[in-house]
């Protein structure tokens, strides 16, 4: 029933967006120095830079949606490469939990995703954003944005 609601509320079936999609990028500054290299497409990026991705609490991820994000991307270091040993693993667990909350809310957990990227791999980060934008074309903008 929750999943039905998710689709009812957010799946606009590939209709053209009425505004540019907004993506909030939480990233540890080891994985990605800043989000400047992600700018320039037909979307808006809001970068949230952190010393380690694990400092993002559940509410920070939710508030990104309250602040108007259509999708939230969390960029963390590869497993075993976290400067704080388990930071990225903690982040993953928190993201998993918030995805469930987003499903319950009706926004849909699919709008929040975590990716491991090698330090400074801006091309990978850019591909992630482009993929997210493409998916947003299918999901539609967030009705809670």
């Amino acid at each position: 029933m929750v999943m039905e609601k998710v689709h009812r509320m957010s799946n606009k079936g590939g209709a053209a967006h009425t505004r540019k999609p907004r993506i909030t990028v939480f990233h540890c500054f080891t994985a990605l120095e800043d989000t400047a290299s992600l700018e320039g497409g037909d979307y808006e990026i809001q970068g949230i830079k952190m010393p380690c991705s694990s400092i993002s609490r559940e509410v920070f991820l939710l508030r990104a949606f309250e602040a108007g994000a259509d999708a939230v991307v969390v960029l963390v270091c590869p497993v075993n490469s976290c400067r704080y040993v388990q930071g990225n693993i903690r982040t993953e667990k928190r993201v998993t939990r918030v995805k469930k909350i987003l499903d319950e809310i009706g926004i849909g957990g699919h709008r929040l995703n975590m990716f491991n990227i090698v330090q400074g791999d801006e091309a990978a980060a850019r591909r992630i954003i482009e993929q997210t934008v493409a998916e947003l074309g299918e999901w539609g903008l967030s009705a809670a944005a």
Partner: protein
Amino acid sequence: MIVGEQKPLEEIKAKVSGYSRILILGCGTCVKTCFAGGEDEVATLASALRLSFKLEGRTIQIEEQTVERQCEDEFIKEAATNIAEVKAVVSLACGAGVQMVASRFPQVTLLPGVNTTFIGILEKAGLFTEKCLGCGNCIVDLFGGICPIGRCAKRLFHGPCGGSSKGKCEVNPDTDCAWQLIVDHAAATGQLDKLAEYVPPKDWRTSQAGGPRKVHREDHEI
């Protein structure tokens, strides 16, 4: 610690849906420790509710506050100003905290946001387990520090039942059979003979069976 779990979002949402402005009141002791009702959970629940109502085209004003403990006047009076401004309070305290706030502020509706479960421990990261039923007369020393009241589903005092299998409880195969633990501990520490001692029937009047209980400390009556 008192362990609890936050109620499902849908249940909390249904409870608050008749109100345009609410206070979510957290509790900074037990339920914070078990991640059910401290500052973080208050903030997360508030955000989730706002988003959920927004999807329905509704806005709901949510105040957030967490006090040290909802089971003491000293702390809940800090919330008086916020409580005065709402008709309903979602309390993320244990059942005792919710009722304390309800008794002090009878004009507001108290909505529990947490299901209070048990007196337990943090067994390992992410796993809280029940250990004590508050029977009011602790005798764990008779059983090597393993309580057959809190940890045996049948509260047996004289050995395992027929449902103990491979060290697990038939009521829940994820739960260790308390009596297996008791016997193993006694064997490992050379105290098996202690288990042969007769344990008299328990007087349950000191437990919940005796009705709501009180502890009166005259020396702190000021």
